[in-house]
């Protein structure tokens, strides 16, 4: 068996790293390339970079920063944010990223996922779903870094992404993001039941226990971690960290 992965999901605001709470309240975390150097030393499984302002500012991915990240990284990398075309994907993969993450464009650019998947293989593409509860408590898909709400359910989108050929699905609970309160286990279970592609659970992780809990769901191959690996503790200052030993203890060998 492959080891279950614990993946820092790092948020880019163009050229700087930030961390959010419920997709708001951006807090400055640091410089991307320097952070990669620290994560190299910590021997992290894999890194996921998401530029959370690219789509809404209608701009290209920041290729200069992505190049710096790729040059520093001795671990697998994925990138998402502002990707609309096959050509962009090609440039990003050529730079040394293993995978791209598609969120808004899975709805806005029909056919893009299928094209990437058939050309580069399904392993090169992560479909990303951001979910938030509406006024009635119903969990619906949001796009554009949470700014645009849709009436699509997570289950329907997950099935669609799988059909179009993504290799993994990243599920982020906006309600849990930055709260340190643990993953939305019900949501993750629900989606995991309807698709067979591996799932990366994301949003809300605050402790090793949270990771253990989400790994107990069969099919969850990876857990995204944010606040926990960039802050000392909840409400405290920036400290890039990765509890490698504790992680090794809770995942299947």
């Amino acid at each position, binding site marked *: 068996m*492959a080891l*279950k992965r614990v993946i820092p999901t790092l948020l880019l605001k163009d050229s700087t790293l930030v961390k959010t709470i419920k997709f708001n309240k951006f807090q400055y975390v640091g410089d991307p390339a320097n952070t990669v150097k620290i994560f190299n030393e910590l021997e992290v499984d*894999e890194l996921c970079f998401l530029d959370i302002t690219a789509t809404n500012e209608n701009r290209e991915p920041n290729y200069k920063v992505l190049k710096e990240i790729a040059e520093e990284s*001795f671990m697998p990398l994925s990138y998402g944010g502002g990707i609309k075309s096959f050509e962009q994907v090609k440039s990003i993969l050529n730079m040394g990223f293993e995978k791209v993450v598609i969120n808004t464009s899975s709805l806005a650019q029909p056919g893009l996922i299928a094209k990437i998947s058939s050309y580069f*293989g*399904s*392993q090169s593409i992560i479909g990303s779903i951001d979910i938030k509860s509406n006024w009635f408590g119903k969990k619906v898909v949001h796009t554009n870094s949470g700014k645009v709400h849709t009436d699509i359910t997570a289950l329907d989108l997950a099935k669609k992404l799988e059909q179009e050929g993504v*290799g993994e699905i990243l599920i982020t609970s906006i309600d849990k993001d930055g709260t340190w309160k643990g993953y939305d286990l019900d949501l993750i279970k629900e989606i995991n039941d309807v698709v067979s592609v591996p799932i990366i659970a994301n949003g809300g992780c605050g402790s090793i226990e949270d990771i253990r809990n989400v790994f107990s769901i069969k099919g969850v191959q990876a857990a995204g971690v944010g606040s926990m690996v960039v802050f000392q503790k909840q409400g405290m200052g920036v400290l890039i960290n990765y509890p490698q030993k504790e992680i090794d203890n809770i995942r299947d060998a």
Partner: protein
Amino acid sequence: MITIIDYGLGNLGSIKNMLKRIGVKSEVTSSETKILKAKKIILPGVGAYDTAMRRLKELDLIKTLNKKALEDKIPIMGVCLGMQLLLESSEEGTEKGLGWIEGSCYKFKFKENTELKIPHMGWNFVFEKQSNSIIKNFENFKFYFVHSYHAKVKNENNKLLVAKYGYEFDCAVAKENIYGFQFHPEKSHKFGMQLFQNFAKI
């Protein structure tokens, strides 16, 4: 100096970066003249088996590579698809491989109702089948894998490392001066660095 063969497939930059980090000089090239002068070669590769073999043919590199591997006998290391090309064939395609090591590549096959996904993607521990200076100091080593096809060598003595995914498969092969690794050392932290260091010292 390590010569990395550029035939349009694979993540050459990442390999070059890691070699730079451990202080080993490298060049990325598809030039026959440069390859003929090479002292050590890395054959990378990501993508489809047939595409890779056809690219090598188009660039007219097969004769040159055969000379370096079989006559000059310089150390040559295939990585990922580059490792699979060292063998005779693959279920993935119809093109013949370089055939330097006897064996073929097969698609992962699991029993029904398995939770195992294809491609095999992620970190796996590797297990030594025989000692060799290229895998010196490997203890509790894990590497990052991404692949749907896996090697199976004919001769037990070409088997260097195995990994388990559903079943045991050959993830590193060797025959005299020729070495192949299924995983991505360039994306496997200190484990990959150790491997490249060993290769540089051979």
